[in-house]
């Protein structure tokens, strides 16, 4: 007999084979982190029922089984390898295996060079991801599969990791996209992720085997793979058990199950993992803590018709709807808190109607909306005011602690922190897509353990050894939890560890605080997550200071909105009356705007009586029919300036040159275009990026953690190569121009050498000549004499004299172009000043003007309204100054200079665009923030990636403008 045991991240699988290798026993169960217990249970069962206490060949496989196997001296086989062993026996004709597990994705190429690939540590889970998404859609995984079969269309969902995808799906749910379509989009996202992350340019063809839980259970997932890869894969019998089967086949030592059991039991008793001090030493400490927090409560009075004028706040969040009503003395009368089920409108209607019904004499003084759904609420119900949620939260916190100087709000999806100075918000920290999911992460984890989140958190309160899970994004936490499970950590220790992680994430990743004093003296914590006492306690422990948690921690936005309305109320609210609500109808229609390349997903809400409301748009075009005036948006202007080069191809006297419009080409195109045109080349430039271009190159990206602008360049090469130019020109450049703003003038490693990556990975370049020489434009005299030699290697008929001339023209054109940018910047500044508009330096890199990379954020900002200029249009206006970081990259020196410029101009503020995965911005962001803060300015950072949640971006932008407005009012 042979036994194979596969202990994965979420499930345990076991098979027993008889001597003819027939499966005589198999089991597939979730282990809920109780790995050793589950293992013992199963082994006992098979030992007794199947093996009849006889020894057998046995081996263990699976990521969660590694530690145990090692410690207990059980033969171990790596799981991917086990797959291969099993497939070799059962399906010897297989060319390629695609296996999705709880948290891993794997591709095995078996023929033409054995290669095995596993997802990177950042690529997130797959099975767990699908589960998470199903939870979000309020479905069981099998229901989701069913639903997906009915889909009519798919949406683009970030395929990079679960956290990103979640923030794409939430707005879709909110916008009322059909769950069938969303479900199908989720499966497609998994497919895209697997291909982009693992195939890395190698084509998946031949006989394909689909293995693992998600592949076995979801028809739609398999058909998505079939469709995308244009193949017909098979999901064999026992597809769940291949790893276990492989382990069984491979087992080469005979073990006595009873003896193994003894060893595993002994192992289970001596758990070792990195642990932290407990949250509470004893019950008494807990009660003291509990009672202290019970005191922070808002004054309430019974809600009757005699309460006088009341003010209502509606906080329409991403997943929930919260409503609070207060009387003129700020006493809380009424609250409501419930999930929005993806459509908050009918829920709010119902609540408002029930208020009218219960209290017919009610006098409503104001209704104020806040949160993601603010505009929707305002339009649907004719609310009096809208307030950005940061301000609402601040107003509520101030009610509890008048001298509050720091507020942290951890909700289900987002985390908001703000510093208060002189009674106004002085600094805002919002979580980036990568560290989000805080509250909902705990929830998802609890659900995976089949508990509710309160129950799960309670488990941790008295854990003796909370697991140290670090402070990274949830995906990392998943694998840290896996590690802890492997090391035998019990559920209470994991629960406590997760709560502590949430806090560390907030403190060290979002706020980047190095000490409690940096936060403030008077801290208010709020948001639903802080109802969780383990998180609350962990927060106090981590900062070493007591904080105030209001009893309405989860309703602060709604309460604050009510207070906001109270201050501004004219006495009578414009909100829909009972009759109007009764007749109220709401229709939702989804469409894609074709107005420009952004292709915004529009949601058109039609309300009876209150008209139409369009959401999802970045600009005014779908509303007013014409796009907003972009003459004061230097991003748009710069993009327009490039048309001169992309539109002018010229005649092919000496041949055709292709230039990919990516990374530093956004700045150097004028140079190279001019140079080649002068030499009689037809110059084909790749078009502005779009989603299709990106997808045409995503299969050749070798590193899934490189920044999106770099990934984008693969698509540009694919598009250019299809045009069959004589050569594609994209030089490597260690050095940039020296603008005398820093100590050196490097390019970042990715910008400098990305052509090398393209050369090594883009198969398209096998058939086109690719010129990616190492060039340095800074040393003009050397370049002028050196470049002709290089170019003549490729085009021997060119004359040195002509090349030199062309080089001179190129330098002149580049200078002219840069001057134009600066001049245009100056024009915009003076025009904005004339009109009294605020000016925003949207600071990034040259390639951030690409609309596919910036997602139209420039337009979003210009709607505030504000004039937008670029970092390179003002960086020349300051002198080099000392910085606390080594200032050695040209593009980055501009950021520091632009920040400095802002501190010298009261009407100018800076928003920094940061591409996810940009290593250098780990250095620049802190520095830019400090330069701005030293100059008394606010710092705002927008992290952007393949896909960006514009809802969060909008809140950030509006918070900034609201804080600026407040500052202005006080001055």
């Amino acid at each position, binding site marked *: 007999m042979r036994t194979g045991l596969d202990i994965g991240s979420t499930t345990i699988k076991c098979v027993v084979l008889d001597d003819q290798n027939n499966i005589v026993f198999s089991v597939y169960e979730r282990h809920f982190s109780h790995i050793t217990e589950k293992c013992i249970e199963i082994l006992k069962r098979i030992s007794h029922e199947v093996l009849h206490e006889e020894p057998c060949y046995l081996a263990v496989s699976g990521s969660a089984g590694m530690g145990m196997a090692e410690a207990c001296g059980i033969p171990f086989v790596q799981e991917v390898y086990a797959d291969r062993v099993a497939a070799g026996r059962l399906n010897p004709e297989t060319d390629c295996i695609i296996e999705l597990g709880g948290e891993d994705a794997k591709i095995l190429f078996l023929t033409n060079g054995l290669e095995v690939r596993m997802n990177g540590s950042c690529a997130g889970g797959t099975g767990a991801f699908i589960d998470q998404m199903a939870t979000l859609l309020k479905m069981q995984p099998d229901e989701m599969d069913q639903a997906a079969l009915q889909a009519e269309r798919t949406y683009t969902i970030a395929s990079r990791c679960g956290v990103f995808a979640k923030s794409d799906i939430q707005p879709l749910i909110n916008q009322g996209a059909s769950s069938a379509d969303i479900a199908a989009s989720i499966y497609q996202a998994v497919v895209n992720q697997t291909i982009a992350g693992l195939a890395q340019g190698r084509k998946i063809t031949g006989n394909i085997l689909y293995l693992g839980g998600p592949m076995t259970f979801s028809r739609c997932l398999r058909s998505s793979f079939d469709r995308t890869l244009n193949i017909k894969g098979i999901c064999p019998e026992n597809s769940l058990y291949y790893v276990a089967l492989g382990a069984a086949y491979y087992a080469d030592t005979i073990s006595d199950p009873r003896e193994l059991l003894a060893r595993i039991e002994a192992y289970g008793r001596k758990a070792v993992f990195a642990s932290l001090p407990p949250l509470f030493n004893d019950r008494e400490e807990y009660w003291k803590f509990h009672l202290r927090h019970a005191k922070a409560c808002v004054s309430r009075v019974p809600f009757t018709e005699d309460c006088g004028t009341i003010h209502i706040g509606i906080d329409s969040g991403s997943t929930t709807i919260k409503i609070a009503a207060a009387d003129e003395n700020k006493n809380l009368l009424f609250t409501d808190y419930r999930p929005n089920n993806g459509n908050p409108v009918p829920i709010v209607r119902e609540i408002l109607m029930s208020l009218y019904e219960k209290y017919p004499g009610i006098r409503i003084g104001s209704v104020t909306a806040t949160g993601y759904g603010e505009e929707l609420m305002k339009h649907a119900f004719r609310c009096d005011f809208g307030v950005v949620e940061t301000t609402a939260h601040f107003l509520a916190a101030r009610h509890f602690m008048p001298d509050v100087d720091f507020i942290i709000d951890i909700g289900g999806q987002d985390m908001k922190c703000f510093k208060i100075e002189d009674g106004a918000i002085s600094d805002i920290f919002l979580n980036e897509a990568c560290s989000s999911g805080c509250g909902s992460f705990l929830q998802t984890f609890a659900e995976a353990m089949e508990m509710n989140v309160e129950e799960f958190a309670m488990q941790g309160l008295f854990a003796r050894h909370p697991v140290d899970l670090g402070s990274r994004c949830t995906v990392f936490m998943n694998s840290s939890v896996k590690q802890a499970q492997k090391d035998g950590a019990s559920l209470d220790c994991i629960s406590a560890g997760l709560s502590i992680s949430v806090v560390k994430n907030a403190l060290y990743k979002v706020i980047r605080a190095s000490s409690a004093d940096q936060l403030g003296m008077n801290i208010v914590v709020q948001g639903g997550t802080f109802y969780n006492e383990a998180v609350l306690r962990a927060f106090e422990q981590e900062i070493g200071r007591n904080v105030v948690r209001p009893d309405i921690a989860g309703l602060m936005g709604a309460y604050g909105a009510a207070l906001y309305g109270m201050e501004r109320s004219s006495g009578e609210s414009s909100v829909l009356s009972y009759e109007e609500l009764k007749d109220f109808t709401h229709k939702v229609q989804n469409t894609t705007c074709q107005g420009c390349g952004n292709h915004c997903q529009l949601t058109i809400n039609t309300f009876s009586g209150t008209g139409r409301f369009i959401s999802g748009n970045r600009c005014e075009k779908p509303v007013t029919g014409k796009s907003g005036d972009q003459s004061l948006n230097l991003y748009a202007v710069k993009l327009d300036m490039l048309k001169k080069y992309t539109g002018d191809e010229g005649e092919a006297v000496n041949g055709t040159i292709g230039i990919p419009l990516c990374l530093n080409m956004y700045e150097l195109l004028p140079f190279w275009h001019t140079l080649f045109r002068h030499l009689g080349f037809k110059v084909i430039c790749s078009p502005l990026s779009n989603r299709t271009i990106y997808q045409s190159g995503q299969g050749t990206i070798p590193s899934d*953690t490189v920044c999106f602008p770099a990934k984008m360049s693969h698509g540009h090469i694919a598009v250019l190569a299809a045009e069959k130019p004589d050569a594609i020109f994209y030089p490597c450049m260690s050095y940039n121009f020296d603008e005398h703003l820093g100590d050196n003038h490097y390019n970042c490693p990715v910008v400098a050498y990305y052509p090398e990556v393209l050369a090594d990975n883009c198969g398209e370049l096998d058939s086109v000549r690719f010129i990616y020489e190492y060039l340095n434009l800074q040393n003009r005299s050397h370049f002028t004499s050196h470049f002709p030699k290089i170019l003549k290697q490729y085009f021997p008929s060119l004359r040195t004299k002509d090349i030199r001339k062309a080089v001179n023209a190129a330098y002149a054109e580049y200078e002219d172009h840069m001057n134009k940018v600066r001049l245009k910047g100056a024009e915009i500044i003076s025009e904005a000043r004339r009109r009294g508009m605020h000016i925003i330096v949207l600071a990034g890199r040259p390639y951030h003007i690409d609309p596919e990379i910036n997602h139209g954020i420039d337009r979003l900002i210009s709607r505030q309204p504000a004039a937008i200029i670029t970092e390179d249009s003002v960086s020349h206006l300051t002198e080099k100054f000392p910085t606390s*970081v080594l200032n050695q990259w040209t593009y980055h020196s501009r950021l520091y200079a632009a920040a400095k410029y802002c501190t010298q101009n009261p009407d100018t503020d800076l928003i920094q665009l940061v591409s996810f995965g940009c290593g250098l911005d780990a250095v620049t962001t802190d520095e830019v923030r400090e330069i701005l803060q030293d100059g008394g300015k606010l710092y705002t950072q927008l992290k952007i990636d393949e896909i960006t949640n514009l809802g969060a971006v909008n809140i950030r932008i509006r918070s900034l403008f609201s804080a600026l407005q407040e500052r202005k009012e006080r001055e």
Partner: protein
Amino acid sequence: MMEYMTPDFTQEMAATHTILIPNMAPVQFSLLQAALDSEGYHTVLLSSGSSEAARLGLKYVHNDTCYPALVVIGQFLEALDSGEYDLEHTALMITQTGGGCRASNYLKLLRKALVKSGYGYIPVISVNFSGLEKNSSLHFTPELARKVFAAVEYGDELSALRNQVRPYESNEGDTEKLTGQWIRTITQWTKDGTNYKKRREIINNFERIAESYSRIPVRHENKIKVGIVGEIYVKFSPIGNNNLLAFLESQGCEVNLPGLMGFLEYSIANTEIDYKLYGGKWYIGLGAETALNYLDAATTAMNDAMRKYGFTAPGRFRELMKKPEGILHLGAKMGEGWLLTAEMVELIESGFTNIVCAQPFGCLPNHIAGKGVMSRIRSLYPEANITAVDYDASSSRVNQENRIKLMLSVAAEKLNGNKPAESY
């Protein structure tokens, strides 16, 4: 804008201050310590990596900064907190490559962390060859420079030999014992000021050392041969790479960890290459060429000595520079740049077809010279079995080891003549 400044390290401080150095490569750094101490410095190597150090690193350094910065700065802060050092007389030493990668910024990030954690009065010494931090850098006298180079050479040889013998030794502990003896002997030489100057003397020692390792009784068996390349810190440092070398040996592998001198030579070669590509002052180009030839002669002698006694050793550095041809240009010089690619090719060609490419999570140069070149290397060398492993403060060991085991499974199969392996 304030610049986070800590006091400059003056030459007078050499006599009064204890200098803390993060230990990167255990063998080489213990000899480097001896070199510094013999020139009048008093140094301490920080070799432990506790969770407290990691916590301090995460607290005071931007969490998206590369892992080595987090580890090293955390180590420093932990040491300063420990109470073991007279803080009025303690200085910190850190390297700066001056290249276009983030690593050049570690020193500035360290200063910032020091100021923020209340240690703004601790001087920081920069070790660099690029003219950075002129007022606070380690002053390389000709004496010190020669001792440092000798230390790196001897260290590279010891660790190369140790790695080749240890997995096969008949009596467990023989190799470590011999390595320990040599470290003591060389430390004594350095103290006495002998055996680092004369070329002949050094070459003799290379041979003596190689000969002594060849006398360790070994078993003859076929082991999986694994090379380690990567970002310099996580490649070498057991703290940075979760004890990768020991892990691989525990899995029954022979490990080849290309030496530290390669990185120094690479840095010098880049000056020469830059001159060829972009022009500049001719004497700088010439100087680099001369220095490189000098070092290359020494490493070549060392490698010859090892080969003479039957050990594997790489070829000349000038040969190594040809390896990336057709894969990556020598102009790619940020971080480990082309050296990383060159080492992979060199390893594959010398039979170490299984490779762990270790890098900090999100390492920029490795997008290019590591992950970026792998598919090309695989197509040129179908036998190559490379796995890229990311290291950072929270990435879990189980994830890393799982990947490595996968690579080893494939390796074992190949070792068995392409039959599915019976172990791993």
